[in-house]
């Protein structure tokens, strides 16, 4: 079973069909059921009660200062110890940065939006309404692979993937390896040194028929998790 940790706001999670498309996409890719749970519902006890093969932490449209860190403590405790293959995408990646860059996440009182950079004068704006004046990497971009890893199996030096973000991880967390970059964002991909915990600033799960590198990437992740051959 795959656990999808939704980073939607609690209100979005209650009122929308949150992550239904992603659930179906992963079920089709792996033949394994995918359970969606909101981040505030995640605890070590819940994770221990489920036969999980993999965890995927989604992106979010919510500014980090609006997220209560205490609602993330359960997920933090899972991430601090789990051996279950985990992939965080976009906000899920940034969350891994918060978890592993903090000395003790339980004492973190407020999360900050760490913007990629301010827009230059007269620079075109790709998404205007969310974070005015800030640069957004939006669209399909090329990633430069910096280190070999099974997650890049079948790729030759780079991949083309979907991006949609204003913020980034500014500091590589201790115990993490820097796996990919591009000119917009240095820390495009990270991996824990000892455990199969991956983060990507890009959205491999948002593949399309035309740009399907993300699909091959997710297949590699689910292969690492033992879900596909």
């Amino acid at each position, binding site marked *: *079973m795959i656990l999808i940790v939704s980073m939607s706001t609690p209100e979005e*999670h*209650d009122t*929308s*069909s*949150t992550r*239904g*498309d992603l*659930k*179906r996409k992963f*079920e089709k890719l792996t033949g394994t*059921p995918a*359970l*969606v*749970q909101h981040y505030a*519902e995640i605890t070590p006890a*819940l994770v221990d*009660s*489920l*036969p999980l093969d993999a965890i995927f932490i989604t992106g979010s449209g919510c500014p980090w200062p609006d997220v209560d860190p205490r609602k993330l403590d359960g997920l933090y405790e899972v991430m601090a110890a789990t051996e279950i293959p985990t992939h965080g995408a976009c906000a899920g990646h940034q969350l891994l940065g918060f978890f592993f860059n903090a000395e003790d996440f339980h004492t973190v009182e407020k999360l900050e939006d760490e913007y990629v950079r301010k827009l230059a004068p007269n620079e075109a704006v790709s998404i205007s309404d969310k974070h005015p004046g800030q640069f957004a990497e939006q669209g399909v971009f090329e990633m430069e692979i910096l280190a070999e890893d099974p997650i890049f199996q079948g790729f030759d030096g780079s991949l083309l993937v979907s991006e949609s973000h204003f913020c980034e991880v500014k500091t590589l967390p201790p115990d993490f390896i820097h796996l990919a970059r591009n000119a917009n964002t240095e820390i495009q991909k990270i991996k824990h040194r000892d455990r199969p915990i991956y983060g990507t600033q890009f959205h491999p799960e948002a593949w399309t028929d035309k740009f399907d590198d993300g699909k091959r990437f997710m297949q590699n992740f689910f292969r690492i998790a033992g879900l596909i051959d």
Partner: protein
Amino acid sequence: MILIASMERIGETYETSSGHHALKCKFEDMTGCPVLVQHYSQITAKLVDTLPVDAIFITGTSVPWSEVGVKDLYGFCDFVRDTELPIHGACGGHQLLGIFFNNDLRTVDKLDNNWMRKLHPNEPDSMPDYHPGWFTESGVWPVQIIAADPIFDSFDGSLMVREAHAGEIKTLPPDFVHLARNDNCEIQAMRHKDRPIYGTQFHPEAWNDDYSDGKRFMENFFRIAGLIQ
């Protein structure tokens, strides 16, 4: 874990619809247990054996039975006929239990719709877009309890519940007990005589603040499943 078996048309589940997200959240709030939604065509004994399932809820459907592929039901039917797990089928899910236990599915080419009755001349159609020309029981209706059962704990003779159906079960399946009726539809509730498999023509899961009998009914079901005290 609760498993919701979605009876939506194949290809609709969580791809083009809400994927029962609101119902999932309702059951999670009620029981504190995670809820996994799977389409009926995905559910087999093999799948359920891999999951820590405590209870199964089979949803309703607006798809006429005559348009459902019989072969797509084989795996789910084999599982339901054999399992000891608590099951509740509501509306279409209830009618499906009738189909499973009244037939040897592998000898059936096409399913019957089993409409309740034709509308009388000049009788108003309460849901003209649903199944035109056929009587639809729609709204909140009283249902009379005709046999005692733990599922009716705290009810005194009847309950007020949401109805939205044009079809019904015409014949009580062998090994089933008839639990409730009303003047529109004789087989409003039934259960397997040896196993905790329940069907209701009504929608207990569609309770609201004004009509909350369905909530107490669902609490009784989840109590039978050992999920709440």
